[in-house]
């Protein structure tokens, strides 16, 4: 049996709002991913996808709080670790996380190469700047990224290039789990295809050992991940292979979701979409 890269058991996390209310945005979520596999997460906006991504790193900061459950990465329990320990020993190596809209959140005053140094130094790895540069150049070349991008500021790069750079930088330490939150949603189709191709290459090369891919774009998810999981109101309602989930979902909510898929293909313009009418 393949090794499990990620095993999450009954994970519950909550936001404590300014009004002091508890909002359970991740509610008893269990999931696992085997080495070499990818899992897609779909669900409506506000259902808790981004919160789940954050929660899976074992790294919590207010207003998000851990409540209960366990997270194991490649057998190692990362639940309940001190945030400093998580930063040094989990982020980037066990779990790499690409937040929603990451490509627009890069520090504009630093060059791309510096971000890689930051990652290495944050982990206190015994490498000097020259070694880091060499490693970065090799990785960029392997991923089809121009090496001179390392000497550029993020704003000088096109949107698609910037996103590929963000992914390459975040995964420089070959994480066991890559969590990508809407990594290509802001891009046009051609750039999107390049991002996906690069991510798949990274998986094939073992630079990333497993992947969680969050998006509400179902045709994309269908083409990218092995399995798809549907989330609703903080809970997992169904999981299956991409094919089962798109063509033969069981849960009524997943059925509604899949019936809403829009693609430019013959005959699809005549189907009716399920819409909620205000009552």
């Amino acid at each position: 049996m393949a090794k499990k890269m990620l095993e999450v058991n009954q994970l519950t996390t909550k936001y404590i709002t300014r009004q002091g209310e508890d909002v359970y945005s991740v509610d008893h979520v269990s999931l696992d991913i085997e080495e070499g596999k990818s899992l897609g997460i779909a669900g409506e906006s506000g259902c808790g996808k981004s919160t789940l991504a954050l929660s899976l790193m074992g790294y919590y900061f207010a207003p998000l709080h851990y409540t209960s459950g366990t997270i194991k990465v490649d057998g190692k329990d990362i639940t309940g670790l001190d945030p400093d320990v998580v930063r040094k020993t989990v982020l980037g190596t066990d779990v790499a996380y690409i937040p929603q809209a990451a490509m627009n959140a890069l520090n504009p005053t630093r060059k791309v190469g510096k971000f890689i140094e930051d990652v290495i130094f944050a982990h206190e790895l015994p490498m000097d700047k020259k070694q880091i540069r060499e490693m970065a150049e090799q990785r960029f070349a392997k991923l089809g990224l121009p090496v001179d991008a390392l000497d550029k500021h993020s704003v000088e790069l096109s949107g698609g290039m910037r996103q590929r750079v963000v992914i390459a930088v975040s995964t420089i330490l070959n994480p066991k789990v890559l969590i990508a939150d809407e990594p290509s949603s802001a891009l046009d189709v051609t750039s999107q295809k390049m991002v996906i191709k690069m991510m798949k290459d990274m998986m094939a090369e073992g630079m990333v050992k497993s992947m969680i891919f969050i998006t509400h774009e179902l045709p994309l998810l269908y083409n990218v991940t092995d399995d798809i999981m549907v989330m609703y109101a903080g809970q997992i309602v169904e999981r299956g292979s991409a094919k089962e989930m798109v063509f033969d979902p069981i849960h009524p909510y997943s059925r509604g979701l899949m019936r809403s898929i829009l693609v430019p293909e013959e005959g699809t313009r005549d189907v009716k979409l399920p819409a909620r009418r205000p009552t």
Partner: protein
Amino acid sequence: MKTNEEKNVQLEDKRESVTFGSDRNKDFSKEPMCLSGRGVTRVFHTGKTTTVAVDHVDFDFHKGELISIVGESGSGKTTLSKMLLGLLEPTEGEIFFKDKPRDISSGAKKKEYWQGIQAIFQDPFSSYNVFHKIDSVLLDCINMRGGKNLPKEKKYEMMAEACSFVNLKFAELTNKYPFELSGGQMQRLMIARIFLLKPDILLADEPTSMIDACSRATILDMLLNLRNETGMTVIFITHDIGLAYYISDSVYIMEHGKFVESGKPDEVMLHPKAAYTKRLISDVPKIHEPWDLSTVEFH
């Protein structure tokens, strides 16, 4: 811990279907002209470089028509929409509003034009003042439509109705700031604004890009209902080719500032003629046809 049942979450698929009115292939060329353009061009000069962002485009948008403008990043969509909105002057060519040359030369005329055209922008977070609570965003819309002196209860009723139209609960939003919502919730809030403003023309730059498929269907349904009720012309600017195919009465494909192809969605998207459109369509992930990654070239 509460289960979904206890949270009273509705999981049953009780949704109705989106209706497009009786005629999905209606001929809008017989409808009155709403907005048209001839040779519309915008050139930018920055330092020594000259960018022709929009390059001699012609278009005819009719009353009640839903038009999608599709093109890649940098093709000139936002520049064109700024010209349509009157935020940017064409450097060449002319725009006609209801068959007359559009005149926005004075402040008063601009104001009049803006009564009739409203926009929803790409990035919902940038559209809100982070210090304004959500109720005041909606209240502004009511005031803008001359509702300033309505009784407070009436205003609340209107805001609640607008929220429920986009499946937001007004009671849960009062007293919140925009950054306390998810991206999709913010986008729905923008559409609630349009519900209150009811313009002649709605220009929507990527209005559903952060929205999941289910809510998107609901929002399209809402926009289409608004369109059917008010005869509002809707201009969608989008990367989402599946969406453009499904929803549009006509589609314009933009490449490097030019319209390379336009027409009914079935013609343009299933039987594209321009090489650019062909490539674009082939890059869209589909579910019945394979999505070939082996041909991707990095650049």
